[in-house]
């Protein structure tokens, strides 16, 4: 299957827009609390919003670093073990405070960029979990593709952000529509 290569400028613009919107929401909440008397219920909601958005910005800034590393990585797609990479990513995500339970084959060879996978997957797990500190990552073999499904344990559907899309695209993954999880596939390499 031929994939359309995203315009890198467009990708970066989309990611920046998202981060800027979050910063805008924080500023809006703070100035409203400071200069407008919003009432106790709204004040509590604004504080919660500012706190959540600050957490998301922090995760996304790490994601931007990973995205830049992937975008400047000149290596070609080749065989990569997604089973091992997912487990490595779970360990890295744990350092960021996201507990990930990985299930599925321990080893499955797919077409990807191994260095990019190590950069991108821990962030993908954090982004998929959003503010939830626990996610499950399930790996399946489906026909000629490997399917990865990342789902928050406690919260609802994860947000599909531009950054998430961009990171997946950089490692040769194809996002799939899902109402309750982040799903993506890789082309399998059959020995």
């Amino acid at each position, binding site marked *: 299957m031929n994939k359309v290569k995203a315009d890198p400028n467009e990708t970066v613009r*989309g990611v920046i*827009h998202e981060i*800027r*919107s*979050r910063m*805008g*929401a924080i*500023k*809006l*909440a703070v*100035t*409203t609390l400071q*200069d*407008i*008397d*919003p*009432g106790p219920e*709204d004040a509590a*909601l*604004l504080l919660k*919003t500012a706190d*959540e*958005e600050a957490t998301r910005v922090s995760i996304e800034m790490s994601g931007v670093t990973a995205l830049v590393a992937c975008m400047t990585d000149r290596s070609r797609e080749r065989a990569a073990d997604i089973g091992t990479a997912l487990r490595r990513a779970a360990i890295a995500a744990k350092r960021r405070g996201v507990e990930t339970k990985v299930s599925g084959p321990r080893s499955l060879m797919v077409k990807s960029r191994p260095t990019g996978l190590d950069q991108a997957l821990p962030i993908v797990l954090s982004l998929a979990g959003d503010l939830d500190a626990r996610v499950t990552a399930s790996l399946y073999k489906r026909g000629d593709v490997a399917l990865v499904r990342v789902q928050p344990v406690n919260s609802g559907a994860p947000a599909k952000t531009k950054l998430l899309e961009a990171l997946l695209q950089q490692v040769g993954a194809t996002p799939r529509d899902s109402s309750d999880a982040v799903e993506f596939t890789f082309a399998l390499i059959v020995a």
Partner: protein
Amino acid sequence: MLVDDHPSIRVGIRPGLESGGFAQIVAEAGDGEEAVRIAIDAKPDVVLMDLNLPKMSGIEATRQIIAELTTCKVLVFSSAADEPHVLEAIKAGASGYVLKTAHPLEVVEAVRQVHQGQLHFTPSLAGMVLEELRRQSSLKLTPKEHALTQQERQVLELSEKGVSMPEIAKKLNMSPPRVVSLQNSATEKMRSASQG
């Protein structure tokens, strides 16, 4: 009506607009298609519209809402400050453009003015808008020929230099709402001239 794909922006702007009973938020939408569908049903007086939306851009949603609801005013509320976005919004029929970095009280004032049939542009964008209106005018009129008042000209000159609204107010020793009002009257005069 609030249109933004980030719920946190909608949460943040609501208290300012609803404070003192100034406005009532009758509907919210998170993408362009939803915005058009809900607006037609809710018939809001003013739509506060983000531009970078999923499914349908804010520009296209603005165009469709104005075509369907002739009395509805659209005020763009975006983080994009670049010329193409601002000019496209004007061409789509938006009555104003406020940056997401604006103070909530400026947003409230902008909604009030747009609701009253006036135009409102964040001061740092006003110069760009006026330049475009000038370009559209084949007469290439100068501010003097538009019969701008001295205060309007002073505000205009500082806006064109990119001076922020609070700084203009400080420099000219006037209140921020007065700066906004002068800027709008100047914009309106320029627009009338470019159309005439």
